[in-house]
């Protein structure tokens, strides 16, 4: 397996979906190639970073929902004949 193929299999590998035969080739290449090991670490790192930066506990979330949104939703609901 070459670095190019390894890169193609990354998504399946990290989600545990790479078939056994490919996985052993993948891991053999990985054991011999520092550059691909580094790439794998960074690829997984990005998934994690996205989750932390934008996930449920993210510090981008406003402490309070904008007051005008709360008012607009509640007002519109009252006017909504089907709710």
């Amino acid at each position: 397996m070459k670095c190019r193929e390894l890169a193609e299999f990354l998504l399946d590998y990290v989600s545990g979906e790479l078939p056994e035969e490919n996985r052993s080739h993948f891991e053999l290449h990985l054991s011999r190639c520092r550059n691909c090991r580094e790439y794998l670490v960074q690829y997984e790192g990005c998934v994690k970073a996205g989750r932390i930066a934008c996930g449920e506990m993210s510090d981008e979330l406003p402490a309070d929902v904008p007051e005008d949104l709360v008012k607009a939703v509640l007002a519109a609901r009252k006017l909504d004949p089907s709710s």
Partner: protein
Amino acid sequence: MGSAIPVDDEAGLITQLRAGDESAYEHVVRTYGGRLLAVTRRILGSDEDARDVVQDAFLNAFRSVNRFEGNSKLSTWLHRIAVNAALMKLRTRKRKPEQSIEALLPAFLDDGHHEERFQSWDEPVDQAMERAETRQLVRAQIDALPESYRTVLVLRDIEGLDTEETAKMLGLTVNATKIRLHRARQALRSLLAPHLAGAGPGKAVS
């Protein structure tokens, strides 16, 4: 401000919503509005569109609260409604021509090796992400991804939907969804690497 309904008493909350209890509606908007605004803004890249979509999503949810079966959590259900509304908005909105992602994908030599020699990041990602400025940087780079890639990344890696569900929501095949997610992650890596290796934030550069 707000009401004293504990978030973990979902069954009670649902009952109050169905009974038309005004304070229950307000509680839901205050509790979940922030997260819904964040995810729809990430998909749409616009505060104004996100606000409109979240407002519609709440109204839609309140209208169909009788159909909420309680198989999923209320927050999950609200997220699905808001994400669907955001995707619908994307489809109707005038499309900007999308920049190509090719330049952000890894390049290979003729013999199949990577062209680039990847430089290790300065610290483990968990540690880097402890800094607010790094979290901000990651959000900015996700927002910089081309729209069709950003959307898949948001649904899969941030919202945590599975591939089948993401594919269905986007009207793509499972395979196309996987390819797009893979490219989105690779592109994000290319965008983040220069900031996290060598002279990352917080590092003294001489």
